């Protein structure tokens, strides 16, 4: 899906974005409230320049529009996989982007993300997964790894993986799995302006994805294990 098509539906009241290479930035209006739009297009591979430009866009919002909510529009095939990116330390650029988003949250910006295209591993990690809550459109694609590639790396047969995917949300791609795991809060359907408005009205809680994943039956251990460790405070 292209980004304008999604934004037309999210902001019937209008929006303005500029495109610079694979990065978009701008502002939209949702139910009378102005919010910042920052994101990537064309299944961007997030290398050092894209991560840097995204960070610059976040810093601009922090400095020029204090507390304005930020909608991250996610469409990424993951981090860019080149010698040059690693030579110059892509992890540091992605970390910088994550820190900028964290700083925005600490300074009172609401940060919500929407996967409107594709979301894959490291690219998703430093963008959409840094939001307070991540959402997806129904036709979005989210994965860590395709099952074929997973077969190659883990030496588990495709048949066995397919079978496991019928009951477990852990292994396979797909937004329903990511909803069950608590990673995606909800799928946006129908009136998308309402969806964003609702998301911005939810409290700016800290990370509750493990608890959500447990409630939804996708992963029960993350919340339990962390809880047990927190309960051992008197031993420390």
């Amino acid at each position: 899906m292209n980004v304008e098509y999604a934004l037309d539906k999210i902001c019937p009241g209008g929006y303005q974005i500029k495109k610079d290479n694979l990065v978009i930035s701008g502002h939209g209006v949702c139910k009378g409230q102005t919010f910042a739009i920052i994101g990537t297009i064309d299944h961007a591979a997030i290398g050092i320049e894209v991560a840097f430009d995204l960070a610059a866009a976040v810093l601009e919002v922090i400095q020029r529009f204090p507390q304005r909510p930020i909608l991250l529009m996610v469409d990424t095939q993951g981090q860019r996989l080149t010698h040059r990116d690693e030579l110059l330390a892509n992890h540091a650029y992605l970390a910088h982007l994550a820190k900028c988003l964290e700083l925005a949250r600490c300074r009172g910006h609401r940060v919500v993300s929407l996967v409107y295209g594709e979301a894959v591993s490291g690219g998703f990690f430093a963008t959409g997964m840094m939001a307070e809550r991540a959402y997806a459109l129904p036709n979005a694609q989210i994965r860590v790894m395709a099952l074929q590639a997973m077969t190659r790396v883990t030496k588990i047969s495709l048949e066995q993986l397919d079978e496991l995917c019928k009951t477990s949300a852990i292994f396979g791609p797909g937004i329903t799995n990511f909803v069950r795991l608590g990673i995606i809060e909800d799928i946006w359907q129908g009136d998308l302006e309402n969806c964003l408005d609702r998301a911005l009205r939810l409290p700016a809680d800290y990370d509750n994805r493990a608890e959500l994943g447990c409630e939804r039956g996708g992963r029960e251990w993350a919340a339990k294990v962390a809880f047990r460790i927190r309960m051992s405070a008197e031993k420390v």
Partner: protein
Amino acid sequence: MNLADWRKRDSFYEASARRRILGLLDQNSFQELLGPAERITSPHLEQLGFPVSFDDGVVIGSGLLNGKKVLIAAQESGFMGGAVGEVHGAKITGLLQLALISHVTAVLLVLDTGGVRLHEANAGLVAISEILHAAFRAREAGIPILVLIGGNNGCYGGMGIFARCCDYIIMSEEGRLSVAGPEVIETAGGVEEFDSRDRALVWRTMGGKHRYLLGEADRLVVDDIKAFREVAIELIQKPKPLTLESILQEHQRLGERLVAYGECKDALDIWKKIGIPEFDAIPLMDNDAFHSIVKPYLPREGTEEET
């Protein structure tokens, strides 16, 4: 270095997770949390018919560092490449959350990992994101997080991004730090893009010396647990708050790097451009020689005082 000094070393690279923890902390002070006796293993590996480990590949607990109360986690390089699954990740997240409740001086994370455990793909990715969010809460509360990298697996994938979100990174020359690992780049771009079997290339691109020269590692120490311990003692009481000012400084540094070294094809080109004499001998220099030669050429970060 003479042979006697060499023999006195307690190799960080060779040590197990528990050995590293015992060597880093004050003697007899380590108390493990959720240890092997609790039998908390990965339900997903079991489902796949893979061997499980009673600590799921990460040892966590509390102890003293130079008399100060700290929390510590160490990934076990020998189990699943130190990779992060649901339980493994939740142990580190829980530890970082515990830091907020238990008023410790700092958290030490010994990272030795390929990133997401692909056998638990989706749960592994979100586990690392949860570690990151918990770490930011601890940092916000002024509890410094020190990352120590010097093991067999390096520190890759989401954990490489995470490491750079902590207060300090202490590395040895043997440590490697990146997001995409050598094999991943080679698979994506072919052997012409990156030859993952070329060890010298891997080390000069992702290894401790290059990361230190770029300013991506705060300290570079010899492969000795005691050396890591000494630097950790020095840094545990110096939290680096995430402020607009510090992030803007980082932004400027990363922007300047793109301009200065964006055309470089190899670490050697960067070291040459930095202006280091004998730049091509860097991979062979021992730690002392390296530090004495590169000292004038290091990038400065505003928040850490010169010691």
